[in-house]
């Protein structure tokens, strides 16, 4: 369990995160959403220990990420948006870097690389940006760690690879692992991410599972307009409306519509989902 309490961070005088509190439980793939510049990447780098919080605390099973103790580093994987082209083959890189993680599985790496159709003996500095990203994704999945922090993992992937990424995530991530994915490409991960965290400047607007979201909000794909709609978007042949679910009917959550509805009705949504977290 990751506990974030009253987290604050700023770049010089520019405040990016303030008073952020949330819990991240094991066995889930969290989608971290937010507008450009709200601090999604900053939050991820704070979670993995690349940055030091200016205020507040982050507790990962009793450990502080910024301490960068080897046992926690071995238990987590940080996949940045832009990855570095190492001057060796993918296999060599995997062997060289994987040996630090007890549960690293080289056969799994080979298998995932096969699924992504990337040659394991290809030199990483000769790979395209997409191939390089896929290699890092495969390596991350072969590490079998408990905490994955991924920043825009589908950026640069071709269309088939996005589907393969979804499948690989379901198939290869350990059951008890916490995966936090920051993304703008919500359609790439629509059926994967649950719960969803929507971040705003200095606030967490929403941190809830799809079941809770669909129990409180109704996603209407019909043509009849609803007076209480929190968000309305015209689509070819109809529209998507989001409104409070008073009937208790179930509906399929459209993450893009949800995101826009949350941003348009920040206070209402916050009150609806009551963002209070246990202070302990």
């Amino acid at each position, binding site marked *: 369990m990751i506990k974030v309490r009253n987290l604050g961070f700023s770049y010089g005088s520019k405040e990016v995160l303030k008073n952020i509190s949330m819990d991240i439980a094991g066995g889930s793939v969290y989608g971290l959403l937010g507008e450009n510049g709200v601090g999604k990447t900053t939050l991820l780098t704070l979670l993995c220990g690349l940055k030091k919080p200016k205020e507040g605390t982050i507790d990962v099973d009793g450990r502080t990420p910024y301490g960068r*103790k080897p046992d926690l580093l071995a238990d987590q994987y940080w996949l940045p948006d832009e990855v*570095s082209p190492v001057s060796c083959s993918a296999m060599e890189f995997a062997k060289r870097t994987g040996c630090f993680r007890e549960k690293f599985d080289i056969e799994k790496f080979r298998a995932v690389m096969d699924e992504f159709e990337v040659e394991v003996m290809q030199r990483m500095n000769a790979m395209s940006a997409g191939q390089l990203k896929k290699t890092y994704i495969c390596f991350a999945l072969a590490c079998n760690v408990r905490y994955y922090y991924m920043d825009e993992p589908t950026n640069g992937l071709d269309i088939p690879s996005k589907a393969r990424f979804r499948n690989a995530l379901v198939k290869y991530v350990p059951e008890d692992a916490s995966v936090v994915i920051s993304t703008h490409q919500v359609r790439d991960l629509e059926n994967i991410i649950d719960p969803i965290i929507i971040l705003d400047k200095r606030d967490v607007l929403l941190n809830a599972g799809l079941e809770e979201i669909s129990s409180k909000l109704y996603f209407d794909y019909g043509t009849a307009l609803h007076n209480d709609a929190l968000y309305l978007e015209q689509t070819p042949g109809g529209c998507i409306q989001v409104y409070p679910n008073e009937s208790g009917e179930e509906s399929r959550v459209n993450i893009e519509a949800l995101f826009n509805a949350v941003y348009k009705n920040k206070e209402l949504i916050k009150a609806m989902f009551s963002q209070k977290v246990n202070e302990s």
Partner: protein
Amino acid sequence: MKQIFDIKRFGKYFMYDLRQMWTNNGKAAVVIGLSGVAFYSVAILWYLLFKGEWNAPGITARAAVFSLSLVALVFWQSRTYGYVTDKKAGSDWLMIPASVAEKFISMMVITLIVIPLIFFTVYMAADWVLSVADPTFGTALFSLLSSKVPAVFESIPVHIPGVAVVLSFWSNMLYFLLFGLLLKRCKLIGALAVLLGIDVLFTSILSNIVSSIDTEKVYSFVEKISGADFNAVWWCLTAVSFLIVAALAVCSYFRIKTIKH
């Protein structure tokens, strides 16, 4: 304790670091080590083209090239671990599951022992090969160093401890390494600029002190100490060199510990 240092994990990390060093900047130590051969080739070509004779460079020129190579090796340390400040490569490095102490010790062993060892081995081996292959080349630098240099040291009334020479070399290596860890860009220029600044500062302070002292007193002081045992002074300087090495190493450690991306 295992979180601070674990010998098995250190072994793994050291091997990783060695490979990284080799793929990143390690080859530079070999290239700098071959600068003697490059100089020899250029000198031979020069004589052949302009004087029409085969003539290997003399010992003075060879010693000068060796000294310049040594300076180049020291300067290069600003790049050996320079990737640590790069956002992508530096983040990858920070996320390697090894402790700060393990990363630091490995960095010190590579910078202070492995890289100089590669350089000296390559330089001296290449020089020896040339001395065997070309009769005009003269004695190998290594045999000159091992036979003539101790004699030169013995002829000086003051005993210069070998450890002082090593510490002085290490402090230079660590100084440029530290600036490689501190600065994101212009690592070498930054290190040289700070060095120049320190030099200017100390020179001005020293010249002020000297100019304020009565010259008569200075002469009488020099006369008084002319028969004194300078070995003690050398050992003091060695101790100061040791402190400088330790301070630079401590600064590098804290830089590694607190670096953020």
